[in-house]
């Protein structure tokens, strides 16, 4: 079997204001979000190498933050202007090792998801190895309604609808081919799975943890801070 590498995306444009910090460097109970996102993969038996994608202007800062947090990664790669570009750049960075068969599995995780504990990782890697790709997800337990100018116009069943999470795990060769095909077609995926799925490769969904939230809204920072304090 080839090697499994984890790529944690931390190049988000969270620092638009002057003197602002990227949200992945925000402190959560004494440890930055990105360090909490990286930590589950560093010592995980399924993962051989861990990389972080940082904004081109934050490579040094990212290295410093991770070192201060005691997170030893194999490398920090420069990100692109979008999530898709960052993923594509990272996968292309490993193209030679993927094509030679040295890297078999690539795992993509969002650097703004600090609550993942790695519990489903072995299952995800196993399913990706067998089928092509596997992602974490949770069932959508919400009521959906269409709204027009005249008010509610119809309720939508959420049966079979799930919220996609990360980690998203793929056979490395499939991922490389998917990103090259996306580039040729000018396709920009919203997440890794959407780029792979358009190739007709089945992506299995493994039930994840609802607590594996992505920090987007201020409330998410508050919730994440309380979740990391929870026993």
């Amino acid at each position, binding site marked *: 079997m080839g090697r499994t590498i984890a790529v944690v995306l931390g190049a988000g444009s969270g620092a638009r204001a002057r003197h*602002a910090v990227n949200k992945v460097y925000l402190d959560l109970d004494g440890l930055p979000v990105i360090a909490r996102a990286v930590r589950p993969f560093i010592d995980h038996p399924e993962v051989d190498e861990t990389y972080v994608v940082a904004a081109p202007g934050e490579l040094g800062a990212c290295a410093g933050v991770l070192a201060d947090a005691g997170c030893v990664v194999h490398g920090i790669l420069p990100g692109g202007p979008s999530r898709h570009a960052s993923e594509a750049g990272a996968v292309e960075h490993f193209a030679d090792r993927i094509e030679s068969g040295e890297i078999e599995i690539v795992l993509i995780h969002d650097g703004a998801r600090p609550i993942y504990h790695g519990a489903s990782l072995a299952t995800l890697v196993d399913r990706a190895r067998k089928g092509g790709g596997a992602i974490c997800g949770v069932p959508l337990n919400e009521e959906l309604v269409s709204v027009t100018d005249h008010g509610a116009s119809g309720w939508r069943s959420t049966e079979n609808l799930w919220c996609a999470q990360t980690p998203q795990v793929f056979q490395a060769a499939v991922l490389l081919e998917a990103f090259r095909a996306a580039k040729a077609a000018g396709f920009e995926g919203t997440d890794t799975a959407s780029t792979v799925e358009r190739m007709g490769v089945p992506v299995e969904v493994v039930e994840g943890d609802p607590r594996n939230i992505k920090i987007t*809204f201020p409330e998410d920072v*508050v919730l994440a801070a309380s979740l990391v304090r929870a026993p």
Partner: protein
Amino acid sequence: MKVKSSLMCQNCGRQTSHELHYVGSSLHEIRCLQCSTETWGHHHPVAGYVGEMRGRIVTKPWRVLREMTTEPAAIRSLLPRVASKPVRVASELIEILR
């Protein structure tokens, strides 16, 4: 300590600059700098700070010992840090009580 970061504001409906106010390592408040919507973290900053301070005091000997064994060069900066500690704790307290 106050930190600025871009987060999605429900009220503005887009990503805006927010100011996050930490007391010690506890998140106290987040405020949207566009619409001033506030999101509260720890509602009782004094209680949170006291709890955190208790933990810091209890673990201090171990943290100093670990630092002395893993980073002997850091011993040189120990005295200035000890000397400035009361001032740093006082500034944290002033920030909470403000």
